[in-house]
């Protein structure tokens, strides 16, 4: 795998995470627990779609096949998607949605911080822009987790349950393969083990403040970076890609 190919794949991985989580958050539209949160979730969703779009656009410049960001978003199947398993999990209740957001945004924050030192200028720029938004997403979701952990018995129970349910998908975010090896050797990306250590520190602090117990590591599942997903992704893409698939070649 040469550097360009590795970078292309890496951009897809970043963009796919954003688009899949963005799609999940958009599912909350008109369904939020209060109007302000309805807006917050679609706002975060909008940020994520924007980040995905710029990352796809960069990816298209790395290959010579006339593809566009829309092609990458709407015409790849689930085996060609490289997002982490965490983001494709169904929303569940509001506690699970916020928990997923904390787990992902803490990861994204440390990854983007590292990528701000990338040797690839474009990636560096994209990471810097995404970092600003990600910090807000992390703050917003961690505030809810802390609120729930110190709220009612029900909110505590739901939040601990959310953590227990989602924990099994977190190792998947730090899996490295030949893409990472190539990019690390070129100083374009960084060792995800280091990101994992920082991530763990960040979430531990939040969970301590929310009185949450770290779950036992059982039934750990991985596979996103190889395009091996949970059953949920296919349905998400099916809905998202419906019009592009049903009307090939149409412009909208």
């Amino acid at each position, binding site marked *: 795998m040469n550097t360009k190919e590795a970078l292309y794949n890496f951009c897809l991985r970043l963009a796919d995470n954003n688009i899949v989580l963005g799609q999940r958050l958009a599912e909350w539209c*008109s369904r939020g*627990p209060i109007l302000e949160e309805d807006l917050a979730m*679609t706002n975060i969703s909008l940020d994520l779609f924007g980040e995905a779009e710029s990352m796809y656009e960069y990816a298209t410049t790395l290959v010579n096949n006339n593809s566009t960001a829309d092609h990458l978003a709407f015409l790849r199947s689930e085996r060609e998607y490289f997002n982490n398993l965490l983001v494709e999990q169904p929303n569940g209740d509001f506690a699970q949605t916020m928990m997923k957001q904390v787990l992902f945004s803490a990861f994204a924050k440390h990854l983007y911080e590292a990528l701000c030192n990338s040797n690839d200028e474009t990636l560096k720029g994209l990471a810097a822009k995404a970092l600003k938004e990600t910090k807000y997403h992390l703050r917003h979701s961690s505030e809810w987790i802390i609120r*729930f952990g110190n709220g009612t018995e029900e909110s505590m129970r739901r939040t601990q349950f959310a953590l227990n349910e989602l924990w099994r998908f977190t190792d998947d975010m730090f899996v490295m393969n030949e893409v990472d090896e190539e990019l690390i050797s070129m100083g374009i990306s960084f060792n995800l083990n280091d990101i994992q250590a920082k991530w763990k520190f960040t979430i531990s602090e939040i969970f301590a403040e929310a009185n949450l117990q770290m779950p036992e590591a059982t039934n750990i599942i991985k596979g996103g970076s190889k395009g091996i997903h949970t059953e949920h992704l296919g349905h998400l893409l099916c809905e998202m890609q419906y019009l592009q698939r049903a009307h090939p070649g149409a412009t909208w």
Partner: protein
Amino acid sequence: MTDEQKLAKFEARILAGEKIEPKDWMPEAYSKTLLRQMSQHAHSEVIGMQPESNWVLRAPSLRAKKILLAKIQDEGGHGLYLYSAAETFGIDRAEMIEQLQTGKAKYSSVFNYPTLNWADIGAIGWLVDGAAIVNQTMLAKCSYGPYSRAMIRICKEEGFHQRQGYEIMAKMMTGTAAQKEMAQDAMNRWWWPALMMFGPHDAESVHTSESMRWKIKVESNDKLRQRFVNRTVEQAHHIGLTVPDANLKYNKETMNWEFSEINWDEFWAVVKGNGPCNHQRMAHHIKYHNEGAWVREAAIAYENKLQQKQKTTV
């Protein structure tokens, strides 16, 4: 000052074009009408998120998805500041939501129609928001300060919504046969509900005359509806859409597009709860409001604990 003197002073202020502010004296009928209208308007923004969110997951491009997400957020934001403006009458949002869910308060009937294909998103932006702008531009001149100011802000964003809706329709009308068919289908289904948004004929509108005197409304339903038709017919023709009205014709003398009588039976049926989506919209609102109850309770419990802590540390 007697109530009669107060009323005379109030009406003189309105006649002079002054704005009435929350702390000013106002007749009960004035505040009652405005509260009814403003809460109805806020609820409309919120319920209006439902037919649009029906397509947010299936938006056909990244650009379309971003625009739709931003638009729905705008609508929710309008809901928020209209609720705040209505709260100037001493009612809180929770109470207004309860009135909505028990049927005491209404929302715009137009959202009781379904969004069945992607062009419906275009039609809502172009026709529904287009009709709303005509009405809201008028309301921006209304005599109640908080409502008037909210309308000025909202109108700016609605202008953007209308353009994006028209753009969706225009793009589809230059697309494949299937796309054109979808656009015309959406036009056929949304044209009449959009005209109904202006309400009954002036002669039959129960609230019109007093509302006009107090400048809650400054123009009549029929006049506003005609303005909308004149504006929209030409836009439809420009992109090749047919207006679903065999009697539509231009009158050179009045410079108006004349149109058929609205199906008032349908209008009243939908207002009274028998539209295609009345039940669905309310059931949706109640379901997610109830599902979110534990979140609101947790937030309050947390706030209370924080306050307790602050008290004990002081």
